[in-house]
């Protein structure tokens, strides 16, 4: 007779399916495509980028390769005032943007889901404490909080991730809690309890699978948020000077008066990249929303 485990598709296939990727939404598909390009760029950044992004470059005539226009001396997007290759910086910026975005989104989705599940499932004083914490988190102004955190910690791109993990779980937790409250009232949850299943088993088996798409929805919102926040923090000068990010590039361009030099090639590409990634995240989010609330009917 067929074993239960054998008659189902393999674990990777099931995991992929449980992501519920919104593949039939055209905007979401565009978003996913943008993400695919950026993810590949981030992975193969060392192969794609012609130079080290912080290396100070020289022209064949042994002059400093500063403020070169796109195409001059083979620099695709030109160079910065310090003679660094802008294209290489963009490529490596992808890496830090996605690293921050994905880890922050993961943290936000994870913490938010756990808090929402525990709060909604157990209720009572646990719920009261967690939701008052969420109220406090709602009261914290986000950007100043990150600046203060950066002052206390070493300047690092991870400050943004820590700040997001500490503050932005609140939205995810609230929404997931409300979903758990309705799921908890279903008879099959009582049935599982009567048949002797532990709370942990009920949460993992009967409740968590139903809130997974919501976790992903809030996770994908958080990616855009994280990238934007990192860019803002770097632009304000509280970022990590050692690592190249799009925000850092904008700050560098601003400080070097790129606008006055009309060096659009310097600050427009990182801007476009930020816009692309954030709006791609938004489109994917929209796709999930369609999937979750099909009756919105767009």
């Amino acid at each position: 007779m067929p074993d239960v485990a054998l008659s189902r598709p393999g674990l990777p296939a099931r995991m992929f399916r449980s992501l519920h990727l919104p593949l039939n939404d055209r905007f979401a598909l565009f978003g996913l495509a943008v993400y695919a390009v950026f993810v590949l760029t981030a992975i193969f950044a060392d192969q794609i980028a012609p130079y080290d992004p912080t290396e100070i470059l020289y022209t064949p005539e042994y002059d400093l390769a500063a403020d070169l226009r796109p195409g001059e001396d083979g620099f695709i997007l030109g160079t910065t005032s310090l003679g660094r290759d802008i294209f290489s910086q963009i490529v490596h910026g992808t890496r830090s943007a996605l690293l921050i975005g994905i880890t922050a989104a993961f943290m936000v989705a994870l913490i938010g889901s756990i808090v929402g599940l525990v709060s909604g499932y157990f209720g009572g004083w646990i719920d009261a404490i967690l939701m008052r914490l969420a109220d406090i988190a709602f009261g914290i102004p986000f950007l100043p909080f990150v600046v203060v955190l950066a002052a206390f910690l070493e300047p690092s791109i991870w400050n943004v991730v820590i700040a997001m993990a500490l503050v932005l779980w609140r939205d995810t937790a609230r929404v997931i809690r409300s979903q758990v409250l309705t799921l908890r009232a279903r008879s099959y949850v009582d049935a599982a309890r009567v048949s002797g299943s532990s709370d942990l088993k009920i949460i993992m088996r009967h409740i968590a699978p139903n809130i997974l798409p919501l976790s992903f929805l809030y996770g994908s919102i958080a990616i855009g948020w994280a990238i934007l926040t990192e860019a803002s923090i770097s632009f304000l000068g509280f970022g990590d000077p050692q690592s190249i990010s799009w925000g850092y590039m904008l700050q560098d361009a601003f400080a070097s008066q790129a606008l006055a030099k009309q060096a659009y090639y310097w600050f427009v590409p990182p801007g476009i990249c930020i816009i692309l990634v954030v709006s791609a995240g938004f489109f994917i989010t929209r796709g999930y929303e369609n999937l979750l609330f099909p009756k919105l009917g767009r």
Partner: protein
Amino acid sequence: MLDSNEPLVSVREVQLHYRVGGALSALRGRSSVVKAVDRVSFEIRRGESVGLLGESGCGKTSMGRLLLKLEEATGGEISFAGEAIAGLKGAALKRYRAKAQLIFQNPFDAVNPRFTIRAALSEPLENAGIPVREREGPIIEALELVRLPQPQQFLDRYPHQLSGGQLQRVVMARALILQPAFVVADEPVSMLDVSVRAGVLNVFRDVRDRLGLTAIYISHDLALVRYVCERTIVMYLGRIMEDGSTEDIVHEPLHPYTKALVAAVPVPQPDQSHDPLPIGRGAPDPRNPPSGCVFRDRCPYAFERCASQVPRLRRVGTRNVACHLFEETALSSGRQ
């Protein structure tokens, strides 16, 4: 093995009170307590079938949930086979879960829609520590017990692919798969088509007799309770009104509320007039029940004492009745 006269389930002065409204309304003196179950006491012998009868909101479902430890009593004690269930934890609780089971009202909600029938029936077996390979046998047996024809073909189906009657049988099979001693059936046929009710009810009766189950059948329908149970407990606003043999209650109801319930059962003769007892339209707001006897504002026989004193459940013949009328007769007959 315990003495067969020993009650399997014993409920003493059990209360389930909910506080309605938060801290703010408490400050304004608006907080109130809903007594879903209020000082309920009864015992069930091994092998006995008891109907829990009452209109919606009378606390019958809450009572069932208390018995299965889905809800914790706010007062009183429930014991199963001589052991209080309130303190059960860990392995002892797991043993209790295997012995006391629930059959749900709405079969469409009682099985996780993401689970196949096999997975749904595996859950209790898994919790009982039965390895994956040895689960198929008991699953098929349980499905055969509830007379689901060709059980094999249902194993890999999902709940939405089954009819209500089939699904309710699956729910029953899940309750019976660990061979419990005690089953609470919470209106198991109220969501089903009339045409399949009799089948499901007969399965319930047969299985109960075959396995010698002790059962509580919760319903608002006296006819169904009469079909399934030899004893009936009538509840109203969280309290027991009358407790006695079903036939006695049907033929000679004592409590005015029971009289009204019996009179409300439709008679299948169109030309025979039947007079329902005039008890008014609906039950009062449970947050604000009448003082004294909770039924007094609808009772045609109410007198002064009903407003001032809560009637205790006392023995009248072979039954227990909570009504001042019968204290009166008991007293006056004592005087003679």
